[in-house]
Structure formats: structure tokens, C-alpha cells
């Protein structure tokens, strides 16, 4: 990669999010803003609202503004490919964050989502004493979410006493998840555990469980402040496998800067660890 | 008591009223006369605060008034029955009569009281209108009475009736006149608009005539003859109202052979034939099923059974578009709701169902040909308008009607159904339409004419089918076509049911 717009001495970073109506991405944005201020870079941020076509448009608009670095949080890995190519053709450094993108991405920085699903469901199975009925509260079908579900199913498969009785889509939205989980509990009166693919859905599930006064254990992925708080308070929400959104951005930006400064080799993929947050360590955890 | 002076009004560039005066006294029925588009309705809308005059004064009881909204006119004792219906279709008669003037007790509707009061008003009109059903389900005449009841319930001291009789039968009109006389004797000032001169002579005290937005004059009814009156209205004498009828042609080819039309399941059935080159009148009381019968031939009404042969081909059209292909066209009874595309120009309204002859490359419209043809038919039927591109909704009622007629002349459908072709049309235009119809039959068109005006039915029809309660009870021709005969069948004719 080359320095795209040498005439423009200020570094210009573009960051496109799949959604911003979620603390996870909001905190990424904050980390980006802080980092950019530190290196006196200009930042353009866009919100695709889960629409790949809009995300491509957003990237196109950024390219019009001669960005040097594109931090890409794709809403769909395959769909975004043409934007990646366009950016590369324009000589922009492309780093995918949180979810990978097809095409000539320079570096992908993201959580180990499979691990996250696996850890959460392993924790859930153990907390349930290795037996009982479990349901999955699914989300928007994008790769990271699908990986978490896969990881979860693997962990559940390793616990012979656990049966997966239901998978419903809560669309990662608190109010939708609330209704879905209420219905789940009606359909499966003996439900003992729920794994939610993210904390947004989990908060809705928690409201449903508490509203019904049932003893259902809940685990999730993310480590959102609200979720951590709920876990610390000793609710049915017992665990979330935390990701590190701020670190993803910091690492991603670091990789991009390395190239910007002339590095010829950078890692194609930088997996970021996930960490189990439960009642024991919740007090000290924050994104 | 009411004086309007020097009223001027223009809609955009179109000057509609050029300084019109009107003076109405307490306890008189003041007839307002004029051709279509003369400005009668506009004048009344100005009185009621619905349209603002550009110039002129309104004096009521010696006090100058100008109303911003109809409400204020009502406060001042003015009530109006509009030419266009102003009922809410899904509300009941009671709800309509008291709309915006509900009787309330403690903030809630006093439904019993309103019902009682509505019943009283309708009784006064001498009609029995069901109070609990949406007015959309009422017949046109019943709706008209609800409309009148609504105005009466205001206890207005100045009551405007804009063509209230256009949709009423003679006996219903009589009822209305009785009520008007009562009101007159109570000192109410009534402005009465009608195109029926005989009605004016029967009920009117004085007459004010408008012509093209100009004030022509005011006369006492007793002091003016029909001919003089017509001359005042149209500025010329109208000769011979109805064109002569040709001799009967019983052997003429049958273009519509309706063996059996049954509107409703288990209802009575009708049979009739339409012959080439004739005008077949459909007479009967309002609501006797004439329109529905006509629409079922077109495929626009879901009748229980329709057995019909058109030009020798059996089978009823499935929809008006198929009817059109088979040569039948309809001039509907309500031109505004059923006839005109109000967002279209005159030209576009005329050409709507016949682009056949203005095509280039088979599929595309030839706009200049379209203009040429439509301008010609427009002139043939004498639509009064600045040009073919004028929006049709700025025309007066009569001219709108002519536009719809022009549509069919443009298309040359050999069978035409004219439903109330002269409803709300002035004498001059009426005569023109009569002559036009006769001319068409001479050219080989065949016409079914539905009409509630007996003189029209008698004067124009070669044969007449009389309807009662949903079906034809008699078909009469030649010298049998008298008002006595028609009324006898229309009220006592024997219905036929299929075995």
C-alpha cells in the first residue's frame, strides 16, 4: 500500500459500521475517536444499519473524500467485496474489524467468535449440572453470529445430558427477544437454559425470565456494560463471554498505521481473545 | 332580508361572476335561474362562506356580513342543500343530520334525542328514511331527503336549495314543495335553483336570471312567460324541444336481446329488446332498478343472472371494457363520480377509451391526431371551454356532461346507454342533447335512455320499458306512451318471476 493522498498531509480514516445502535459498536467508535485524536487524524464514520448496499455506498462516499485508511466492519462478508476492491484500487489500506470481508483485505481483526459461543454454552451446560433443556436465541445471520451458534452447538453436543429444544430468532433486539423468549417459555415449560448470541438479545431474555419468575439460566456473548451489571447483581443472567471491541479497533488501527508508515508485511488475521465474565469477575470488567 | 350586491368572482384567470345582484325577501321562494355554468352554485357558495367573493357585499337583515366559513353562515341563519351531495357515506341519517351540531348531554352524545329530532324533521318532509343504516345504502332520493333534512334541522331563516329536485320523482318533489310552502309561510326566505321551469312556476315567487356570470334581471313569476324566461336565460329563443320521432320500425334488427335479467337472487326478472336505430326509454320511480339493469348489461353490476345476446352474440360482458369491445358505451348517472377523470383535461377525458385511431407504430399515441379528433368532437357537442386542454373539473355540470357524451361519439360505439343524460342540465343544453341523440339514432346508433323526467321519456323514446321494484313490468310504444300509462305501470305493474 502507498500513501494515497500525499498532498493532503492530515491522515484521514474512514470507519463504516454495520450498525451503531448497539453499545458494542458505539464503544468501538469511541476508541477510534480517542486514538485518532492522539495521532491528529481526521475520521469519517458511517452507519450501514445492517444494509450491505448502503455500506457499499458509504465506502464509495468515503473514497470520494480521499481517505487513507478504511476500517471496515462489514454487515455481510461476501456482499462487501466490491467495496473492498474499490478501496484497494483507490490505494486505501483496508482493515476488517469484528467480521471479515471477502476480497483483498489487508488485515482482519476480530474476536474468536466460535470460541465465544463455545465458552458460553460450556459454561451454561456446567451451570445446569450437565442436564436439562436449552434453547438458543439466534440473531441476524452474519458470519460472527453463525460462528457463535456453531460454537455453542459444539459445546452442547459435548454435554450428553443437555438437549437443544428450540432455536428462535430474537434479532439481537431487546424488545423482540423479550416476546420471543416469553413464547419459548410457554412452549417449553421445563426450559433450563438459554444462550443468546449477543447481550442485546440477552437483556430482553432476562426481562422475560424475570417477568415469568422462572429459574432459567442465561448466557451470552459481548460483555456489554448492562449485561455485566446484570451478572454482577446475581440475576439469572450468569455469564457473558466478553469481546474487546476497543481493542479490536486499537489493534486494527495499529495494523493499518503500520502499513501506512511503510510496513510491507502485516498479519492477515489478528484474532482477539474472548474472556468469560461471570459473577466472580464482573465487578472489575468493563469495555 | 338578504341582499347580495355586485358580487364578482374569478377562479384564476376564469371570471365566473361579473357583478351579480340578488335580493331575497322574507317569506318568498326566490328562483335562481341560468344555464349551466351561469354561476348559480358559485353565487350560493359565496353566500355560505364556502367560496370567497373577490368583490361585492352581502347584507343580511341590514347588516353587512362576510363569512369565513360555512359555520359562520349557519350562525347567521343561512342553510344550504348543496348541488353535490355532502353526506358522509358510512354514517347514518341521524349522524349525518346532526354532524358538527350534535346534541350532547354532559359531553356525551344524546343519541335518543337526536334520533327523535331527526325523525321529526323527516316526518315533516313526509318521508320514511331508515335511520340506522349508513346513508351509502340509501337510494339517491332518500339521500337527497336526508340532505334536505340536514338543512332544515338548522332552522335556517335563509334556506338555499341547489337543484334539490334533480334526483326526485314528481311525487317526492310535491312533498318537498309542501314543506317549502310551510317554511315560506313561517317567513323563511328560500333560494331555489332548478332547471325545471314548470317547478319554478309552481313554487317560485320571484325569479333572478343569470347568464354567463352576468346579472340579467329579476321578475315576478306571474309576470313572465316561459318563452320570455328562456330568452332571458339563453339570450335566444329555443325552438321545438323534442325532435320529431321517426315512424316505428318493428322489423329493425335487434342489437340487444335481453332474455332474462334478474338483479337479485329470487327477485323479479326483466326481458327487453333494443332495436337498431331506436331510443328505448327506461322509465320508473327512483330506485326501481333501471341503473342496475343497465349496469348489469355492461358487466358493471353483479346481477344474479343475465341472459343477453348482443348483436347476435350470446353472453353478457364480464366488465365494461368487454362491453366496449362489443359496442356498448355508458353515460353514467353521476358524471363527477362515475363519468369524469377529474385530474384529466377535456381532451384526455374524451380520448380515454379510444386510442385506436391515434396510433403511430401500432403501439404509440399520436398526440397531435388525438388533439385534432377530440377537438372536433368537442366542437360537435359544443362543449363551452377555452380549449381541449382545460382541466375538466373547472367546467360547469352541463359542459362536463357533454364531455362524457363526446367520449362516446369519439368512440363510435353503436349502442349507447344514457343514464339521466340531462340531469342538472339547462334547457338550452337539454335541447341540444335531445337533438344529438336523435341525430345519432338516425346515423344508426341505438340508445337506451334512463330518465326520471317523464316529459323527456315521452318526448324522445320510440318505446319505453317501465320499471317497478327491480324489473321491467311493461314495454309500451307509440300512442301508448302517455304519462298516465307510465305512472300506472310504474306503481302497480305486475312483476314476473321465473318458475
Amino acid at each position, binding site marked *: 500500500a502507498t500513501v494515497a493522498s500525499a498532498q493532503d498531509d492530515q491522515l484521514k480514516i474512514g470507519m463504516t459500521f454495520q450498525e451503531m*445502535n448497539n453499545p458494542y459498536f458505539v464503544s468501538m467508535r469511541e476508541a477510534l475517536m480517542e486514538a485518532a485524536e492522539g495521532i491528529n487524524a481526521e475520521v469519517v464514520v458511517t452507519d450501514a444499519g445492517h444494509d450491505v448496499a448502503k455500506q457499499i455506498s458509504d465506502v464509495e462516499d468515503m473514497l470520494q473524500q480521499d481517505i487513507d485508511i478504511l476500517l471496515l466492519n462489514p454487515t455481510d462478508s461476501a456482499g462487501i467485496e466490491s467495496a473492498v476492491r474499490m478501496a484497494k484500487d483507490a490505494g486505501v489500506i483496508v482493515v476488517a474489524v469484528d467480521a471479515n470481508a471477502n476480497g483483498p483485505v489487508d488485515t482482519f481483526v476480530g474476536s474468536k467468535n466460535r470460541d465465544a459461543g463455545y465458552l458460553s454454552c460450556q459454561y451454561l451446560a456446567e451451570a445446569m449440572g450437565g442436564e436439562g433443556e436449552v434453547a438458543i436465541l439466534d440473531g441476524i445471520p452474519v458470519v460472527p453470529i453463525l460462528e457463535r451458534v456453531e460454537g455453542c452447538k459444539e459445546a452442547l453436543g459435548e454435554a450428553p445430558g443437555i438437549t437443544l429444544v428450540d432455536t428462535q430468532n430474537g434479532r439481537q433486539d431487546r424488545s423482540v427477544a423479550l416476546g420471543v423468549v*416469553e413464547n419459548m417459555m410457554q412452549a417449553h415449560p421445563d426450559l433450563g437454559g438459554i444462550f443468546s448470541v449477543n447481550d442485546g438479545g440477552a437483556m430482553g431474555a432476562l426481562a422475560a425470565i424475570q417477568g415469568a419468575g422462572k429459574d432459567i439460566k442465561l448466557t451470552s456473548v459481548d460483555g456489554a456494560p448492562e449485561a455485566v451489571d446484570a451478572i454482577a447483581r446475581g440475576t439469572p443472567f450468569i455469564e457473558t463471554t466478553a469481546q474487546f471491541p476497543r481493542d479490536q479497533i486499537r489493534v486494527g488501527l495499529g495494523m493499518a498505521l503500520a502499513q501506512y508508515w511503510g510496513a510491507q508485511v502485516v498479519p492477515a488475521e489478528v484474532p482477539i481473545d474472548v474472556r468469560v465474565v461471570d459473577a466472580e469477575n464482573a465487578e472489575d470488567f468493563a469495555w | 332580508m338578504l341582499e347580495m350586491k355586485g358580487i364578482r368572482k374569478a377562479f384564476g384567470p376564469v371570471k365566473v361572476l361579473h357583478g351579480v345582484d340578488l335580493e331575497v325577501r322574507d317569506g318568498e321562494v326566490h328562483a335562481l335561474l341560468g344555464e349551466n355554468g351561469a354561476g348559480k352554485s358559485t353565487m350560493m357558495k359565496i353566500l355560505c362562506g364556502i367560496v370567497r367573493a373577490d368583490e361585492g357585499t352581502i347584507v343580511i337583515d341590514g347588516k353587512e356580513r362576510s363569512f369565513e366559513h360555512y359555520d359562520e353562515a349557519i350562525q347567521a341563519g343561512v342553510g344550504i342543500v348543496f348541488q353535490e351531495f355532502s353526506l358522509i357515506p358510512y354514517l347514518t341519517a341521524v349522524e349525518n343530520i346532526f354532524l358538527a351540531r350534535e346534541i350532547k348531554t354532559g359531553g356525551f352524545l344524546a343519541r335518543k334525542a337526536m334520533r327523535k329530532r331527526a325523525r321529526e324533521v323527516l316526518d315533516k318532509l313526509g318521508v320514511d328514511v331508515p335511520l340506522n343504516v349508513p346513508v351509502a345504502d*340509501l337510494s339517491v332520493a332518500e339521500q337527497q331527503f336526508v340532505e334536505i333534512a340536514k338543512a332544515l334541522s338548522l332552522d335556517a331563516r335563509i334556506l338555499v336549495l341547489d337543484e334539490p329536485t334533480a334526483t326526485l320523482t314528481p311525487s317526492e318533489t310535491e312533498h318537498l314543495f309542501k314543506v317549502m310552502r310551510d317554511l315560506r309561510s313561517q317567513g323563511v326566505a328560500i333560494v331555489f335553483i332548478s332547471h325545471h321551469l314548470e317547478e319554478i312556476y309552481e313554487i317560485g315567487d320571484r325569479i333572478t336570471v343569470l347568464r354567463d356570470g352576468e346579472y340579467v334581471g329579476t321578475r315576478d313569476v306571474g309576470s313572465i312567460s316561459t318563452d320570455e324566461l328562456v330568452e332571458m336565460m339563453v339570450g335566444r329563443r329555443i325552438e321545438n324541444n323534442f325532435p320529431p320521432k321517426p315512424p316505428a320500425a318493428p322489423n329493425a334488427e335487434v342489437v340487444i336481446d335481453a332474455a332474462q335479467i334478474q338483479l337479485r337472487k329470487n327477485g323479479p326478472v326483466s326481458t327487453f329488446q333494443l332495436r337498431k336505430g331506436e331510443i328505448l326509454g327506461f322509465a320508473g320511480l327512483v330506485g326501481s332498478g333501471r341503473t342496475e339493469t343497465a349496469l348489469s348489461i355492461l358487466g358493471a353490476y353483479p346481477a344474479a343472472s343475465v341472459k343477453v345476446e348482443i348483436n347476435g352474440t350470446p353472453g353478457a360482458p364480464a366488465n365494461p371494457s368487454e362491453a366496449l369491445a362489443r359496442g356498448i358505451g355508458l353515460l353514467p348517472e353521476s358524471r363527477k363520480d362515475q363519468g369524469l377523470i377529474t385530474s384529466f383535461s377535456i381532451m384526455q377525458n374524451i380520448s380515454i377509451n379510444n386510442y385506436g385511431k391515434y396510433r403511430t407504430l401500432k403501439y404509440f399515441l399520436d398526440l397531435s391526431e388525438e388533439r385534432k379528433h377530440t377537438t372536433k368532437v368537442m366542437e360537435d357537442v359544443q362543449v363551452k371551454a377555452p380549449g381541449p386542454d382545460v382541466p375538466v373539473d373547472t367546467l360547469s355540470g352541463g359542459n362536463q356532461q357533454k364531455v362524457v357524451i363526446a367520449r362516446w361519439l369519439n368512440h363510435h360505439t353503436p349502442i349507447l346507454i344514457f343514464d339521466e343524460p340531462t340531469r342538472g342540465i339547462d334547457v338550452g343544453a337539454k335541447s341540444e342533447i335531445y337533438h344529438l341523440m336523435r341525430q345519432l339514432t338516425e346515423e344508426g346508433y341505438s340508445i337506451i335512455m334512463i330518465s326520471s323526467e317523464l316529459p323527456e321519456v315521452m318526448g324522445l323514446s320510440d318505446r319505453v320499458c317501465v320499471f317497478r321494484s327491480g324489473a321491467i313490468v311493461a314495454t309500451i310504444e307509440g300512442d301508448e306512451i302517455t304519462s298516465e300509462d307510465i305512472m300506472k305501470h310504474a306503481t302497480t305493474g305486475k312483476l314476473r318471476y321465473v318458475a
Partner: protein
Amino acid sequence: MSHDAETQRSSSPVHTVLASIKHSPLLLPLVGLIVVSIAMAFASDNFFSVDNLVNVLRQQSIIGILAIGMTFVILTGGIDLSVGAVMALCGTLGAGVMVNMGLPGWLGLLAMIVVGILFGLFNGILVAWGKMPAIIVTLATMLIARGLGLVYSGGYPISGLPGWVSWFGIGRIGGIPTPIIIMVVLYALAWVLLQRTAFGRHVYSIGGNETAANLSGVNTKRIKLFVFMISGFTSAMAAIVLTGRLMSGQPGAGVAFELDAIAMVVLGGTAIAGGRGLILGTLIGAILLGIINNGLNLMGINPYLQDVIKGLIILLAIYIGREWR
């Protein structure tokens, strides 16, 4: 003369009642409700438990409340696409008042209601005085409300509300969940407004024929304004229940709720063109939709397939009921 006219005038009271049921616009929604309930009961054992039925009602309470305002607006021939976004905005700002500004909780609730009514006022002024089509106005205000909520909260949900707020979402009065009670009370109020006051008549009259209503002296502009304000108010009430259920202000809540609310109104037999319909029909529509959602969930149908089935049921219901509108 029309047929129902005749039956109405006929003598026997039993006959009258029968006829009025037969001709009631509620007939078909009720039949639909019964048919769907029976189908669901066969398909899932858990369906016909009191618990589950309460569950359905509670789930539908939020959109069911939105559908009240939607019914008013649709009866006048309008539509309000902004209800879901306004609800989210109300909830977010209300939570902000309690948490970020640290004011007492009741002020937060009051703020929700004020914001809801103000947004309704805004919609109403644009539609009534601005003479702009409701569908476009509320499409735009939907964007605006949604954006404002997100700008205010920075995209974060606002949590940390006083505990008693949850009473509105998960509390009970005499064993019945509060949201259900709130919903039913609001429906009752709406019924009185629509059927027993002049205002209600005017609402219907505008949907029936606006020009005629205006000519008859109905202040059509004011009525339209009120109708949108009612919709804003019910959005705020829905926000209160939602906030109680989620114990947080959610700027992103309520996406596409307007579509469900419209579906409820129309399933309930109200004509989309206005002028005809009953508020009780909307309640039935809400329950019907709830039962469909719940039943499909209980049967464990693939969630993607659920949308397909829901769409087909809506089509079927409207198709059967179409003579009525």
C-alpha cells in the same frame, strides 16, 4: 331500499340482535380469532392455558396500544408510520430524564407523554394545516424521531431506572399484568371517545368524506390534529409499558412496529381508506396477531417460515373480510 335498512326496521328484538351481529364489522375478525385459536389449540398443547393466553395479551400490549392511536388516524383516512419511532424516542428521553438528569421518575413518565403528544402535534399540524399526505409526513417524522433518540443517547440504551418503573411492564394488579390493564383501559377510553362523543363522529366523518364533513361544519383540521395527538399519546403510553418491560430506554426499539399496528387495525375490520371500523375490532386484531405469533412459536416453526405464514394469514383474513370494507 337497502336490505339492512329493512331488517333494522323489522320488529322482533331477537331478530334485530341477530341481524346486528350478522352485519357487525366485528363478525369476521371474531370468526377469524376463533378459527385461528382452534387451529392453534390443535397444533400445540400449551396453547389453551390461562398462562399462555395472559402471555399473549401481555406481549401484544405494546403494539396493541400503538394500534389504538393508529385506529384513530386510519379512521380519518390517514396513516401514522411514526408510532414505533416515537415510542422509542419517548422511552429514551424519559429514561434520560430519570437517569441522566437525575429527576424523579414521575417526571420521566410525564416527559414521555409530553414528547409523544408533541410529536403527534407536529405530525398533525403538518397533515392538517400543511395539507401534506400523512404517509409522507409520518415517514419523515419516523426518521426524525428515530434519529433524535439515537443522537440523544449516543446509541446506548439508558438503564438504571428506579425499580418501581418495572411495575408498568411486569407488575400485576389483582393478578392481572399491568400492561394488559393499561391496554384494556385505553381501549375502553378509545371506545367511549369514538362511539359516544361528537369528536368520535367527526373522526368517522372525515374518513367518510372529508369535503362533506368540512362543508357540514366539522373542524376537520382540528380533528386531524387531535387524532395525531392521540396517536402520539398512545405511543407514549406504549413507551411507558416498554420501558417497564425492558427497564431501560431503548433508542432502537420499535422498528417496524408501525406495520404490525397497521396489520392489527386492518385485521380488525377497519377500512384502510377510513370512515369505517371499530376500536374493538383493533383489539381483536391485536389478539389475533398475537395468537398467530405465539402459536407459531409454540409449534416450533422455523422463524423464517413464521413470517411467510403470518403474511398468508393476513392475506386470507383480509380476503375473507374484504366485502366489509
